[in-house]
């Protein structure tokens, strides 16, 4: 008897030891202990859970903010948040199933459960125990509703299972640390934002640094046991100006790296800030653009945002299944959606590309599945979708893209987006293609989108399935050799399938952009690496603008710039 127990522990230890570099922490041990304890009792219930997972996200953060050369904030925080996954029913139908007709059912599954930041097993287990009980009761309620809904509604178009079966993973690494010299960064950020002071038309000029160690603990009843830790730093610069007609003109720059040393040096940051200031000063007096249809180039960063919004959100797997979704690409599988020379890849497994750290990197996703490289579009043909553990027709497994912010139920989300042309064109040549196309279409000019602030997209059924990208810096490129002219007040609009058919060339100048992407599972870090692209026809409309006049009194400057 004793021997058997001993053997069992040895095997368990062996399993844990394989493929790991660190010690299993008190947190992980407590999670596993309570999972077994609670599940042992719940298994005896009439509708027992078939799956239970605990995830704890530990965030240790240092932050510094400065505005116009003075400190706005500076501090440190440490928090831990718990999220539970509990499923009643079975893999084919469970409590998480979409309840048709109930808008709230899928939209926001959010739980806010703070859990102690110290490692006392008894205290951690007490929280896990109580929350498991609450969640179990909620799940059984949901399951009853799901069964009724299924009975009273018509047959669903996609009859896939609710939860995929995956190989359990065990991986434990030591929590990382991040050394941040806060006084140094306070001085840096003050210095960066000082230059905004000399410009009376810049109304907001901020810099912020966020240095985080994100340690994730995950255990599930399927045997998955993970402890991963990633340090990262983000530096953001923002500035805002206003034209005399009231239009607000924002500019952002963001930098990302896995260590403070990976961020650009002061000189480079200050140069970028100077460009922001120059752009804004020029934009204030730039002419307004009229609605226009014609050829355009999207520079790397702008094209990245464009791909993220217009394509990315439509290849998220669960959207092909939800009955409320437009499912733009569902029936396009195996068909050509893009120029055949272009591949679109999502790869969370790489942390660095072309000399830039990638913020969409992770070893395991938020459902405990190993991150995988996914080629969504190959030679212009739509091959597959980004998948979490919510299976869809033809795709019964996750490809490691189940993601969510702490507290949110994960759904399929984007990671590191890479747009890869097979035969890239030199960017100067791309410009000539634009001019040629304008001449052919008898347009006096084409548009060149240098910077995009972000965008939004509606993928649902009840609203037109369109996108709206918010460009910041746009130039008219004239066919008659006049210099490029900066314009403002442009929104890039359209429907996704049409516009993708019109991307006919891509450049050799990939740029990497970082952002946080917001959707129903919260905000997740993503990156986009994309070259310039040429679109034979885009549509732009007038931007909705603020009706408020610029400040009546001039800025209260005590000293003039020199």
């Amino acid at each position: 008897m004793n021997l058997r127990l001993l053997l069992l522990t040895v095997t368990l230890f062996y399993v844990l030891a394989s493929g790991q570099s660190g010690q299993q922490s008190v947190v992980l041990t407590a999670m596993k202990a309570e999972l077994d304890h609670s599940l042992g009792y719940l298994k005896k219930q009439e509708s027992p859970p078939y799956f239970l997972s605990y995830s704890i996200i530990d965030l240790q953060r240092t932050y510094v903010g400065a505005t116009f050369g003075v400190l706005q904030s500076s501090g440190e925080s440490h928090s831990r948040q718990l999220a539970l996954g509990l499923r009643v029913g079975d893999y084919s139908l469970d409590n998480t199933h979409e309840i048709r007709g109930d808008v709230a059912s899928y939209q926001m599954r959010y739980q806010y459960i703070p859990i102690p930041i110290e490692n006392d097993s008894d205290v951690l287990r007490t929280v896990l125990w109580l929350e498991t009980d609450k969640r179990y009761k909620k799940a059984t309620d949901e399951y009853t509703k799901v069964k009724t809904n299924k009975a009273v509604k018509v047959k669903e178009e996609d009859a896939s299972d609710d939860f995929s079966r995956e190989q359990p993973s065990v991986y434990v690494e030591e929590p990382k640390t991040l050394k941040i010299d806060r006084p140094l960064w306070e001085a840096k950020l003050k210095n960066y934002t000082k230059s905004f002071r000399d410009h009376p038309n810049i109304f907001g000029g901020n810099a912020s640094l966020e240095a985080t160690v994100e340690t994730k603990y995950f255990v599930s009843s399927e045997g998955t046991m993970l402890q991963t830790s990633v340090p990262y730093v983000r530096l953001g610069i923002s500035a805002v100006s206003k034209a005399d007609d009231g239009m607000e003109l924002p500019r952002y720059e963001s930098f990302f790296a896995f260590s403070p040393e990976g961020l650009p040096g002061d000189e480079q940051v200050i140069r970028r800030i100077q460009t922001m200031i120059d752009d804004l000063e020029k934009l204030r007096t730039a002419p307004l653009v009229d609605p226009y249809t014609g050829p355009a180039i999207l520079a790397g960063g702008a094209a990245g945002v464009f791909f993220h919004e217009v394509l990315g959100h439509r290849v998220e797997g669960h959207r092909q299944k939800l009955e409320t979704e437009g499912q733009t690409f569902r029936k396009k599988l195996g068909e050509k959606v893009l120029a055949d020379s272009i591949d679109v890849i999502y790869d969370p497994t790489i942390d660095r590309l072309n000399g830039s750290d990638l913020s969409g990197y992770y070893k395991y996703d938020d459902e405990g599945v190993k991150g995988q490289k996914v080629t969504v579009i190959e030679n212009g043909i739509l091959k597959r979708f980004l998948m979490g553990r919510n299976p869809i027709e033809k795709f019964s497994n996750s490809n490691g893209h189940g993601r969510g912010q702490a507290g949110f139920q994960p759904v399929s989300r984007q990671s590191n987006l890479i747009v890869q042309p097979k035969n890239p064109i030199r960017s100067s040549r791309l410009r000539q293609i634009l001019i040629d196309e304008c001449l052919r279409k008898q347009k006096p000019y084409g548009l060149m989108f240098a910077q995009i602030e972000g965008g939004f997209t509606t993928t649902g059924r009840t609203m037109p399935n369109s996108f709206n990208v918010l460009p910041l810096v746009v130039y008219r490129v004239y066919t008659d050799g006049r210099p490029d002219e900066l314009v403002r007040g442009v929104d890039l609009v359209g429907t996704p399938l049409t516009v993708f058919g019109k991307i006919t060339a891509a450049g050799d100048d990939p740029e990497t952009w970082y952002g946080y992407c917001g959707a129903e599972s919260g905000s997740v870090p993503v990156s986009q690496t994309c070259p310039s692209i040429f679109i034979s026809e885009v549509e732009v409309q007038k931007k909705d603008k603020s009706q408020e006049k610029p400040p009546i009194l001039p800025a209260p400057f005590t000293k003039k710039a020199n």
Partner: protein
Amino acid sequence: MRKRKNIRFMLVTAVILGLAVDALGQNQFIIRAMKDEMDRAMAGLKIDTMKPPYYLAYTVYDQGGCSVRASMGSLVSSSEPARSRPINVQLRVGGKGFDNTNFVSFAAFGRSRLAYVAEDGTLYSAFEGDYDALRRDFWLATDILYKRALDNLSKKKAVLQNSVRTDSTADFSIVEPYSTTTAPLAEKFDKQQWEEKVRRLSAVFKKYSGIQKSEVSAGSHDAYMYFLNNEGSQVNRGYLRSYVEITASTQASDGMPLNDFVAFYATSQRELPGEKEMIQQIEAMANELTARRDAVLLDSYSGPVLFEKQAAAEVIAQGLGPSLCNVREPVSDNAQLEQMIKNQLGENTMQNKIGAKVLAAFISVTDDPTKSSFNGSALVGGYPVDAEGVPAREVKLVEKGILKTLLTSRTPHKRIPESNGHARGLAHQAFVSNLFVTSTKTMNDAELKNALVAMCKERGLDFGIVIRKMTNPYFQRLTRDQSDPMSSYYAATGPKPLVGVPLSVFKVYPDGREERVRGMEIVDMTLQSFKEITAASKGAYVYNHITSQRRPSYTGIFDPQDTRVSVVTPSLLFESIDLKKTSAPHRTAPIVPHPVFGQ
């Protein structure tokens, strides 16, 4: 007298640095920046033919503090001492008789991206900002608010043009300019010491197997406020605030949720009770909560109710206090919004009752922000000058049951044209400070209980009810289940009863025997009920708490003037109150035994 106390206070507490008035020293630039930008705005802020502002007030809060939370001996969160500097601008266009204020419109929400100025006129300035940084923020905030004010003034005129005005009360009252400067106070926050303290206090719950969840949160803050208006008032003064709040919750065997709390509020952290006393009170609460799990249920009760000590103070604080403040119903160009605000303001029958009997004839009520202690117990609701720069003063609200006046800010009431120095918080709304309830007819505690029993006999009831502790909206929010925020959000939007839920309720039988009851709600308490107070105790209970109006962290601003209220009241015997068993649906008791205590 008060002065002497201050001097002693300064001498004993070495941590608190009392600095001389002129020692604002290096912070003089703050006042200079406020004054220079205000002068510039008053001289030049004008669009076309529209009116310039007639009133402008600037406030700067220089504040810092730390807060820590722990549960069962483990830290849940800990923030380091962090400094911030919210600034506030109040701007009026039109004239005192009719201006842009007291008007709400949907268009007012979210406009400029140049600077984020909240609806109450608050903007976060850089905590380390210099003269230039402050002027820049005041410049932008004033500009944004001036445009908002013009917009609101014209909309308000438009709405009222086509409606019959029943109320022609002025929008703003006249006050004498007032200036005062007191020395800054600074307190050293020892984060580590606080962390250790909350670990120890929260570890008390480790021995209570019947309690499912508990938390101790504590913190200490300091602030210095600079206030300046264009009428010549200038107030510069410092504050210290510290707190320890303890919450606990569990379920009865039938699953009924039960919770309780203890809280300590003081100015300096040195003024908080000692750890031993805190632990005693935490243990008393934990014992009471544990005992409540096995309390009996009672379907309903209609009859006399004795509110003892804390329960009497909560009934006064939640039921009576807010109705003794002047409330102006805002004008709106949107019927839905107007209705929403009216619902939030609730019933305000006191507004028209000046000169009428509102309480039992032996009861009087006074509000006195100038007091800082009562019979040796510290009060936390006081202040020397209110948020609009008006000196604080004692106000006799109810004398022998007759309503004499209401608490006012500079927003007048149709029968009270002047401010009585009760503008509180960033919204500058009239609110209670230190509220004193006194009775000319008193009994000792035993007599009071006998009176309850006698009244029950008279009504043919088998037993009477004593309530010893009540919750309030502030703690209801703290103990709300956060694991499902959406459902608790919807649950919170129902109609609001006058007072919260009783926590500690007992049946009292004719022989004096008591029996604990759980899960009762007060169903029919109205302002009318206060006329039917039949007796009061000899002793008065001092209750320091956070006003139920809103949480300090709601806006992220540690607002030194707002939120803290003291109530001093005897226990009160009400002639007739209806109670019923709560009908709120709840979870069953946990299926799985406790991982540490077992079952």
